[in-house]
C-alpha cells in the first residue's frame, strides 16, 4: 500500500486520529493466578501481557548480585502477533534489545537493595503488535510490578512518538512506525517528571525537532499515567471491597 501523506490537510492521521491523540487504552491487573503479579495493557491493537515472579531464589547462580536483587527479563512475541507470521528466537537482536530496555528502565526505579541475593523475573508476552510495543511493555511491567507489591520509588510510564512529514506524531501505530521517520521511545517517572530512558530509532533529526518531539512524548506519558493511576486505584478498591465482604 502506497501512502502519500501520513497527516492529511485536515490534520487527521491514517487511522483517523489527530496528531496528539492517544489510542484507546485498556488495563487489566491481576489476571493470572500462578504468578505474583500480572497485568494486561491494551493500546489500540497492541496487546501486551506482563507477569512478575519474585523475589525468589536465583536460578542461575552465577548471575546473582551480593547486595541487591537481580532482574531477569524474558520477552516472547507470539507468532500470530505481527503481520509476518514468523517465529522470533530468544536470541533475536530485537528481543535482546527490548529485554535490555526493560532492565535498564526498571533497575533505578525498583528498591532492589531490599532483597539481597534474590531474583525478580519479568515475563512479557506480546499478543498483538501494532506499533509502540516497547512502550506498552514498559507500561505493562510497571502495572505487574505494582500488582506484585514490589517496592518502587515511582510510577514508570512510557510512550512512543515519531517525526513524520515534518510533523510530530504521538502514539504511533505499525504503519507510522515503519514509515521511516525517527522514532522516539521515552519512559518517565510520573510523579517527579524525570526521564528514565529514551530510545531513538533511525536517528536523523534536527535538535529543535527533537526537543519538540520529546516534549510531546513526555506529555503523552503523563496522559497515559492518569489512565494507569485510575486503573490501579479502581483495582485496589475492588480488592479491598471483596476482602471486607469476605470478612463479613
Amino acid at each position, binding site marked *: 500500500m502506497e501512502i502519500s501523506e501520513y497527516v492529511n490537510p485536515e490534520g487527521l492521521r491514517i487511522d483517523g486520529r489527530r496528531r496528539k491523540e492517544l489510542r484507546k487504552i485498556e488495563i487489566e491487573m491481576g489476571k493470572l493466578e500462578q504468578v*505474583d503479579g500480572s497485568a494486561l495493557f491494551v493500546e489500540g491493537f497492541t496487546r501486551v501481557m506482563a507477569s512478575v*515472579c*519474585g*523475589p*525468589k*531464589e*536465583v536460578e542461575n*547462580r552465577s548471575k*546473582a548480585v*551480593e547486595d541487591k536483587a537481580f532482574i531477569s527479563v524474558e520477552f516472547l512475541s507470539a507468532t500470530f502477533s505481527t503481520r509476518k507470521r514468523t517465529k522470533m528466537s530468544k536470541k533475536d537482536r530485537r528481543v535482546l534489545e527490548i529485554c535490555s530496555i526493560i532492565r535498564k528502565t526498571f533497575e533505578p526505579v525498583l*528498591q532492589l537493595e*531490599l*532483597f*539481597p*541475593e*534474590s531474583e525478580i523475573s519479568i515475563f512479557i508476552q506480546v499478543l498483538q503488535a501494532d506499533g509502540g510495543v516497547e512502550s506498552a511493555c514498559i507500561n505493562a511491567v510497571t502495572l505487574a510490578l*505494582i*500488582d*506484585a*507489591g*514490589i*517496592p*518502587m*520509588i*515511582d*510510577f514508570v510510564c512510557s510512550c512512543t512518538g515519531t517525526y513524520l512529514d515534518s510533523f510530530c506524531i504521538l502514539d504511533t501505530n505499525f504503519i507510522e512506525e515503519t514509515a521511516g521517520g525517527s522514532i522516539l521511545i521515552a519512559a518517565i*517517572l*510520573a*510523579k*517527579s517528571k524525570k526521564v528514565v530512558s529514551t530510545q531513538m530509532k533511525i536517528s536523523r533529526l534536527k535538535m529543535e525537532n527533537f526537543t519538540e518531539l520529546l516534549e510531546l512524548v513526555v506529555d503523552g506519558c503523563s496522559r497515559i499515567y492518569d489512565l494507569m*493511576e485510575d486503573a*490501579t*486505584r479502581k483495582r*485496589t*478498591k475492588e*480488592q*479491598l471491597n471483596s*476482602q471486607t465482604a469476605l470478612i463479613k
Partner: protein
Amino acid sequence: MNKKIIIPGERIGKASEYESGKGTYINNNYIYSSQLGKIKIESKQTGKKIIEIENKQETAISKIPKIGDKVTCKVIKINPRLIKVHIYCVEEKQLNEPFFGIILTHDIKSTEIDKIKVENCFKPNDVILAEVISLGESRSFSYYLSTAKDDLGVILSINSDGFFLFPYSDSEMICHENQSKEKRKVAILKK
C-alpha cells in the same frame, strides 16, 4: 482516618514530622510511598509517629527471610557436618517456592556441642522450626539456620512404619502405635 488509596511515588508526608516505615522511602526531606495500599499512622511511646503503607495482600518484603525470623522447614539431606533443608514458611507467611537453608552441626543444640550426632537429632523429611542466623555467603546461596533454643527443633515426624511420632522428652519422640522411641531434637512448644 484517611481512606485514600496510595500509589507508588506519591508524596505522603514530611520527614520532620514522621518516621518512614514499611513501604515508604525518604527523598529530599519528604516521605514517599513505594507500594500500593492505604496509609497507616502509628505513634510510638517516644512521641515519634511512624508512617507506613498497609496492604492486606501479602507483599514481597515479608516473603524474604530476615535474620531472627522463625522459619518452618523440611529436612532434605543430612550428613555428619551439616543438614540441608528447604524453607517453606517465614514466620506465618507461606512461600510460593522454597528457599534453601543449611544448619551446621554446632548450631543444632546450645549444650554439649562436641557430642552432637546429626542422626540423633534429625532425619530426612522431618518438619522443623528454626531461626535464621545468617543470610549466607555469596557463593553458597543458602540461609544459615539454627535450632539452638528450646522452642526450636522437630515439630512433625513420621517413622519408617508410616506412623506419626509425638514428643516424649526434649530428645526423644514416641510412636503411640507400637511404643517405639526415636531420638530427635524436639521443639518444646509453649502454649
